[in-house]
């Protein structure tokens, strides 16, 4: 660990000067007590070669090469851009400075004083996180003065911190625990009573034990800066200082779970995870999230066959280091309402468990009796690319081409990739200065994209305009209108906001994928493109026209060309294959149609199903997903499948063989080779494939826009798919946190 490394490095100069004392890394010793004498005894610093690697692979980006300055960290020279703090300079030099309040993505508070270092010619140790590095500064991180200072700070912090590590959920991953081991004193001098603080109720997600709080204010800064809610604050002064909501109130943010990660101690911990497991008994699996189209990078921590928690993983291009509450807490849905056996509906309407052999035989028989144009296949919002490929191939072999992914509407256009992905990229949004959101509520549709927009709004005062039904934003915005008329006004240049877009350097238009479901979507997209053209949103160096997708499966489905042949195939269908599709409207389906539901949850799709084939959920399989910006990512299996479930693509492959239409692949490798011939970008994992052509090559659209206003695409942020709908925590959240 970084700290242990640091601690052992802290030991080295001592060894040089006083070869007799190196029994322990951190001890209080006479030479530490009198800083000056030992500083004098210090040997002149010699550069520590070969160069050290920066902490955590910290990268430096020089915006302007002239602005580079050189500082010395423990005698080792580093070049850093002007304006970096001393702490960042040390990080670049490979020295991990202990810290509590500093967080690279939050503003600097400088109130914990743990990061004290010695700077030559400065009379006192300085708080490195708040001190800008100056040219030629000589920073010393492992001198007795610095160590003494840290030891002192540690002692003060531990004065009021309870010694309840054995029952604290942060134990084992607690910054205070680690740093007191590395930098603290070996004895305490405090004999009085510790203070205690009343716990606050922050809602169903975050558990508080406020006595443990060390007042670093990270959570307050996170709430105000990143989450954009003014719920948390600091009350009182001195030893009466407390973190809390000013009034008795819950924390209503879709990002509130992140305070659990940033709190350096166990003051804010996860309520659903409380007392469930210790972090060292968990197995981490690095995978991605599928509850929205962002594809946040997550780590699934599991113990045995059970998912215990989900935590974010750093990915600067997608989710930085945050995830939404839905992503973090949906995991209990993976344990409830699961389908674990193939089942057939009896004549009396009850489901009866059968073997795979019988189930597949029945499905194959019915499928072969249906006429090709009566066969329909619908992929669900959580489907991975492999299974969608297999489904499409199987249906094509049966002679039907009516296969699509739910949420893409009746007539998706998969021809131009730029027409359904986020062309600016999620991280590219930070360069924008004007946003025009059309029919999308990013806060509920893609919380991480919304966090980026908020970041941009805070950083460069970007303007945000919004067209759609009234909704909640956590940044300033202008509500231009609710429907297509406003679009027409913008396209014709009659709207006052036009000047803002055309004067912008990097304007961004984001269109919500909810509009895909509208009948007049071609006309709407044509109008949006007209706006883009008129205001120069698409330039060779900047593509600001974006679509914000809703589901994890959507982009891959369109990449693979899952486009239905006819718009009303459901009305005449006799055989419907739902691959995890729960949100399709089956009202128009004839009563004698045979419905196969393949999926992992007994959700809406099951109500109408005649036969159930249990499949594995995203935490149990390896699957390829493409996120809304076109970045291909893969999930990895963290836990075994439930019951007798099988991976989606395997079920379809097996069914194809039983039906006598054997698909030409029987391994993941084989199916990926097949995908390569259709959409090679799906094999470049962790890479973003930009769209090649802009909308300029699109054919002319003739059609008029309807005047019905836009609808919101996501009614309930916490419950959007079969996993989140099965989750108890998400149900609590929607009951308590959603404003009615």
């Amino acid at each position: 660990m970084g700290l242990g490394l640091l601690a052992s490095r802290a030991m080295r100069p001592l060894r040089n000067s006083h070869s007799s004392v190196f029994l322990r890394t951190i001890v209080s010793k006479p030479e530490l007590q009198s800083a000056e004498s030992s500083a004098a005894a210090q040997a002149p610093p010699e550069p520590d070669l070969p160069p050290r690697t920066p902490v955590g692979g910290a990268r430096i980006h020089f915006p302007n090469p002239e602005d580079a300055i050189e500082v010395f960290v423990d005698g080792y020279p580093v070049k850093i851009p002007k304006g970096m703090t001393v702490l960042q300079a040390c990080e670049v030099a490979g020295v991990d400075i202990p810290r509590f309040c500093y967080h690279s993505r939050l503003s600097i508070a400088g109130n914990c004083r743990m990061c004290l270092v010695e700077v030559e010619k400065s009379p006192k140790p300085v708080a490195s996180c708040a001190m800008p590095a100056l040219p030629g500064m000589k920073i010393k991180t492992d001198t007795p003065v610095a160590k003494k200072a840290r030891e002192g700070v540690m002692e003060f912090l531990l004065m009021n911190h309870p010694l309840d590590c054995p029952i604290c959920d942060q134990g084992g991953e607690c910054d205070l625990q680690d740093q007191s081991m590395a930098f603290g004193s070996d004895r305490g001098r405090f004999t009085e009573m510790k203070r205690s603080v009343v716990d606050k109720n922050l809602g169903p997600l975050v558990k508080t034990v406020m006595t443990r709080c060390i007042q670093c204010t990270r959570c307050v800064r996170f709430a105000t800066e990143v989450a954009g809610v003014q719920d948390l604050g600091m009350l009182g002064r001195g030893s009466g200082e407390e973190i809390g909501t000013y009034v008795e109130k819950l924390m209503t943010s879709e990002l509130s779970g992140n305070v659990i990660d940033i709190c350096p101690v166990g003051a804010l911990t996860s309520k659903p995870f409380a007392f469930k497991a210790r972090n060292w008994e968990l197995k981490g699996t690095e995978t991605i999230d599928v509850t929205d189209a962002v594809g946040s990078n997550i780590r699934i921590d599991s113990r045995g066959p059970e998912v215990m928690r989900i935590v974010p993983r750093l990915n600067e291009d997608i989710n930085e280091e945050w995830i939404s509450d839905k992503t973090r807490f949906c995991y209990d849905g993976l344990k409830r309402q699961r389908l674990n056996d193939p089942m057939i509906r009896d004549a009396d309407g009850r489901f009866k468990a059968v073997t795979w052999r019988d189930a597949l035989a029945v499905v194959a028989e019915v499928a072969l009796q249906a006429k090709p144009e009566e066969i329909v296949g619908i992929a669900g919002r959580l489907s991975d690319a492999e299974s969608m490929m297999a489904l499409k191939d199987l249906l094509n072999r049966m002679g039907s081409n009516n296969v699509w992914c739910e949420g893409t509407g009746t007539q998706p256009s998969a021809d131009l990739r730029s027409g359904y992905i986020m062309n600016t990229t999620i991280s590219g949004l930070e360069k924008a200065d004007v946003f025009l959101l059309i029919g999308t509520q990013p806060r509920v549709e893609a919380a991480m994209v919304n966090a980026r927009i908020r970041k941009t709004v805070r950083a460069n005062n970007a303007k945000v305009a919004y067209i759609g039904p009234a909704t909640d934003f956590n940044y300033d915005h202008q509500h231009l209108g609710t429907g297509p008329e406003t679009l027409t006004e913008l396209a014709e240049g009659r709207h006052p906001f036009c000047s803002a877009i055309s004067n912008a350097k990097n304007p961004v238009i984001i269109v919500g994928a909810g509009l895909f479901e509208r009948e007049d979507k071609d006309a709407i997209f044509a109008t949006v493109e007209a706006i883009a053209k008129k205001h120069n949103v698409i330039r060779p160096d900047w593509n600001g026209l974006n679509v914000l997708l809703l589901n994890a499966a959507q982009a891959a489905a369109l990449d693979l060309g899952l486009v239905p042949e006819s718009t009303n195939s459901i009305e005449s269908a006799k055989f419907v294959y739902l691959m995890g599709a729960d949100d399709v409207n089956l009202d128009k389906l004839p009563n004698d149609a045979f419905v196969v539901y393949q999926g992992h949850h007994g959700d809406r799709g099951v109500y109408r199903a005649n036969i159930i084939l249990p499949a594995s959920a995203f935490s149990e399989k390896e699957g390829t997903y493409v996120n809304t910006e076109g970045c291909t990512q893969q999930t990895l299996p963290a836990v075994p499948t439930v019951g007798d479930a099988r991976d989606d693509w395997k079920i379809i492959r097996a069914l194809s063989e039983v039906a006598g239409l054997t698909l030409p692949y029987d391994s993941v490798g084989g199916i990926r080779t097949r995908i390569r011939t259709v959409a090679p970008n799906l094999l470049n994992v962790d890479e973003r494939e930009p769209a090649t052509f802009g909308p300029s090559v699109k054919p002319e659209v003739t059609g008029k826009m309807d005047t019905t206003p836009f609808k919101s695409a996501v009614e309930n942020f916490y419950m959007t798919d079969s996993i989140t709908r099965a989750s108890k925590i998400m149900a609590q959240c929607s009951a308590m946190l959603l404003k009615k």
Partner: protein
Amino acid sequence: MSFTLRSVKVPPNSANLEEARSRVFEFFKTACRSLPSIMDMYNLDDVASKSQLRSVISSEIRKNSHVTNPKVIDMLLFKGTEDLNNILEHAKQRHHIIGQYVVGPQGLVQDLDPKDRGMSNFLKNFYRSNYF
């Protein structure tokens, strides 16, 4: 335990493939010779015949016929000897023997359905479990 240790002495490594080969034959013969007492001990007469068990032993040995490294052969022989000794010591029970050597790893469930004959390995594995 001491009994096991006594009976499974570790012989010196085979010097070459030839020596290892002859040891295998030795082992096979020993195993075959102990078959009558094993069948007695575990009451196997009503489930298997001597010749059946003999061919099971030989097929177990043939399973490793591709091994050419004398050290590996020695190791496999050691395992075989150990197993044989365990059986002779009555350290196993009847169902162990039946499960391992009479019925075989396929279990009692055999795909006897004539429809399943032309089934691919994929489908066979699919019916068995999700992990293959």
